[in-house]
């Protein structure tokens, strides 16, 4: 190039062939700087090449490689070559194609040569469709910053168009522009990183109240967008099966995860990432995926502390699509964040499960019941809520007869039945001991009675022993038709359950709501009443049993004419029934469970002993009164057969008192 042929706009000092670029940078027009700074990295590099080619029209091909990893360079801009024919090369390939010294490479010295086409040296072959100028001239200019080559400019032309003068000019022109290109390149890298970090941060900051699936969906949509993929899947390996838990972008109707063969799955499980830039050539490709247009895949494993492996699968319909080194690293961070979020959700789920689950039966516990009851009754959506309470009949005797392990096993089976066979949407809970609850939500056409009987039938199929089955008392109440708040709903269901239990035992509750337990009491001054009272104290009968004992004593004394009816001692109806029931057992053997369907109430067993003692110590026609000792011996002789030995023992403990009473 002669002085006259130099570009008018860019008349720069010449540099001798192979010489170092002049340190004095030529002035770059302000308008060009402005345009460079406004563009993306690709646009800025392309603009630079355009400027070069505009000023040096004899250049046949121009390439700008930019570092994208520790060893890799990406073709950021090119002129004179078919688009897409080149993408990445290793730094070593560029370095070996540079025929200057290693020091010159590292020092950013432009090198001009007249060897074969520069790309043939870089790639080992001439890319298809590329013209080779004869005689050839190649210029390679490494751009250095922070002691590292970060970009490489390569030019190819006929030797007459690319001589030492042109090389010198290019060196100076590029040295003036390089800081701007570097600025644009770093800015874009920082912006990309900021976008990724923002997406990762958003994922980690997501409200834990949101469903995990939605959170992950958002995350992989971001990963798809930022990585330049066309679609993505978040998958989990379950044995040899693969389950998709979130998906985004292209191919929503395709089973893209089927591209992961067993061998690929093993690689992922061992922590390997997999890139398939040419799925169309992959030997184990799935024809349906290939036909649908799948061309490249990138799969990143997400390993958790447990044995579970999940993976982020990104794909494209373009050949050779793979995330660059920076994107791979940021995808790795995103994948790690997804792993953290999933682990946290799993932990929260486990904690919630533990906090709201009865460990024995697997049903909801009392805390879960109270929470759900409040939630359901706080709604005003017009739907009906049925609270059903269930209580196992005679569970204490099952415990006593078969032991706690068997009784616990029954509860486990009951939990299993409720979990497996409950109606869809019905929620079952163990409130404690042998008390259970069901919360049933439905429309106004719901038939609670029918549902209740269905549940009762289900549970009463559970076998306790060869010949006996569980018995269940239940009660229910309906919100909002019967009651309008949670507390009353619970109370009413409890009352109903209690009534049902009493009915199933052939009796009504002892203490109907109209009569409080403490409201009835009686003291009669008869020997039988006094003895029964003392025995009740020794045996520590509870208040309810004492009332039944007093009431039955009262009825008995009335019947024997030893007491007169009194309005003060008017018995509540329920207590009257219970007292009459005690009197019915008066002549039965104390342990008549085999004959009767239930055991004799304790009050009856106490009254049996007391009545026999009082009768024995009083004279009757044809028989003198027995002494306390004789009466005690007579009773002791029938302990176990006729009398409850525990009550007999209690009677013996009153021996002194009995003697005093007899003397009085």
């Amino acid at each position, binding site marked *: 190039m002669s002085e006259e042929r130099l570009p008018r706009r860019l008349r720069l000092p010449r540099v001798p062939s192979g010489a170092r670029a002049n340190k004095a940078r030529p002035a770059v027009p302000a308008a060009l700087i402005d345009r460079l700074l406004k563009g993306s990295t690709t646009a800025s590099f392309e603009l630079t090449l355009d400027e070069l080619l505009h000023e040096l029209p004899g250049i046949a091909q121009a390439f700008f490689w930019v570092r994208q990893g520790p060893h890799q360079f990406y073709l950021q801009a090119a002129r004179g070559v078919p688009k897409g024919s080149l993408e990445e090369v*290793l730094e070593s390939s560029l370095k070996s194609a540079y025929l200057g010294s290693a020091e010159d490479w590292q020092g950013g010295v432009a090198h001009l040569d007249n060897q074969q086409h520069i790309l043939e040296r870089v790639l080992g*072959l001439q890319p298809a469709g590329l013209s080779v100028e004869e005689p050839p001239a190649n210029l390679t200019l490494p751009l250095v910053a922070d002691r590292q080559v970060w970009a490489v400019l390569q030019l190819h032309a006929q030797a007459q168009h690319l001589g030492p003068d042109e090389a010198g000019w290019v060196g100076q022109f590029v040295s003036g522009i390089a800081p701007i290109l570097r600025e644009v390149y770093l800015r874009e890298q920082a912006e990309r990183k900021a976008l990724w970090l923002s997406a990762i941060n958003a994922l980690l900051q997501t409200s834990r109240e949101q469903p995990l699936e939605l959170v992950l969906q958002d995350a992989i949509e971001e990963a798809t967008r930022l990585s330049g993929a066309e679609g993505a899947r978040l998958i989990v390996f379950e044995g040899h099966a693969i389950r998709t838990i979130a998906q985004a972008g292209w191919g929503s109707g395709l089973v893209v995860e089927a591209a992961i063969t067993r061998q690929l799955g093993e690689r992922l499980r061992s922590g390997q990432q997999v890139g398939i830039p040419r799925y169309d050539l992959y030997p184990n490709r799935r024809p349906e995926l290939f036909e649908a247009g799948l061309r490249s895949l990138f799969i990143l494993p997400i390993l958790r502390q447990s044995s579970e492996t999940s993976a982020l699968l990104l794909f494209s319909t373009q050949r050779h699509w793979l995330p660059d080194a920076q994107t791979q690293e940021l995808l790795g961070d995103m994948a790690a964040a997804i792993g953290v979020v999933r682990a946290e959700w799993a932990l929260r789920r486990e904690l919630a499960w533990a906090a709201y689950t009865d460990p024995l039966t697997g049903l909801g516990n009392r805390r879960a019941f109270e929470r759900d009851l409040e939630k359901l009754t706080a709604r005003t959506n017009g739907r009906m809520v049925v609270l059903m309470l269930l209580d196992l009949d005679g569970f204490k005797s099952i415990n006593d007869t078969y032991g706690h392990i068997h009784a616990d096993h029954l509860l486990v089976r009951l939990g299993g039945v409720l979990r497996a066979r409950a109606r869809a949407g019905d929620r079952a809970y163990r409130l404690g001991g042998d008390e259970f609850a069901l919360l049933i939500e439905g429309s106004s056409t719901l038939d609670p009675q029918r549902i209740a009987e269905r549940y009762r039938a289900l549970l009463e199929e559970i076998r306790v022993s060869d010949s006996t089955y569980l018995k269940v008392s239940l009660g229910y109440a309906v919100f909002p038709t019967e009651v309008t708040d949670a507390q009353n709903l619970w109370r009413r269901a409890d009352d109903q359950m209690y009534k049902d239990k009493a009915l199933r035992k052939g009796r009504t509750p002892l203490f109907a709501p109209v009569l409080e337990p403490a409201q009835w009491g009686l003291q009669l001054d008869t020997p039988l009443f006094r003895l029964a009272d003392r025995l009740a104290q020794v045996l520590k009968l509870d208040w309810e049993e004492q009332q039944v004992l007093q009431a039955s004593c009262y009825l008995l004394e009335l019947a024997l004419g030893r007491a007169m009816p009194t309005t003060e001692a008017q018995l509540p109806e329920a207590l009257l029934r219970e007292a009459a029931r005690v009197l019915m057992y008066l002549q039965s053997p104390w342990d008549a469970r085999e004959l009767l369907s239930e055991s004799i109430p304790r009050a009856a067993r106490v009254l049996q002993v007391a009545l026999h003692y009082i009768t024995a110590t009083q004279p009757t026609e044809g028989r003198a009164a027995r002494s306390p000792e004789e009466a005690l011996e007579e009773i002791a002789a029938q302990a176990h057969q006729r009398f409850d030995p525990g009550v007999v023992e209690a009677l013996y403990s009153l021996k002194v008192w009995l003697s005093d009473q007899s003397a009085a």
Partner: protein
Amino acid sequence: MTPDTIPQYGEAILIMDSRSAPAIVRSHSTCESWNRLYKLDNLYLDLSLKIDESGPLLMGKLLTPNPLEGRVRLVAENQDVLQDAELRAMRAWHFRVPAGGVCRLEMHLGGHSFVVRSLDIP
């Protein structure tokens, strides 16, 4: 071999690349081994790099049902031939390779030559 004497090689096409994931490498210090699958015309080349106590080990296997024979050689950046071995279909071979460099693999099978470029050795 100098650049101007490079014969016309069929370029190996990278089909699959598998290596330790960056996040896994950072947290577990896993070695930088890799495995790649290339297509050479109608053949496949399974190539992997393992790092054991003796250093990097390059292992390869030509996957084809046809009984092919030839030679494979490893060439350094400076064109020095580092290793040379017999090549047979479905038979594994391995080369010890210098750490921290970039090499290329040349294969000559019958009348065909193939090259795998840019083999990065950590």
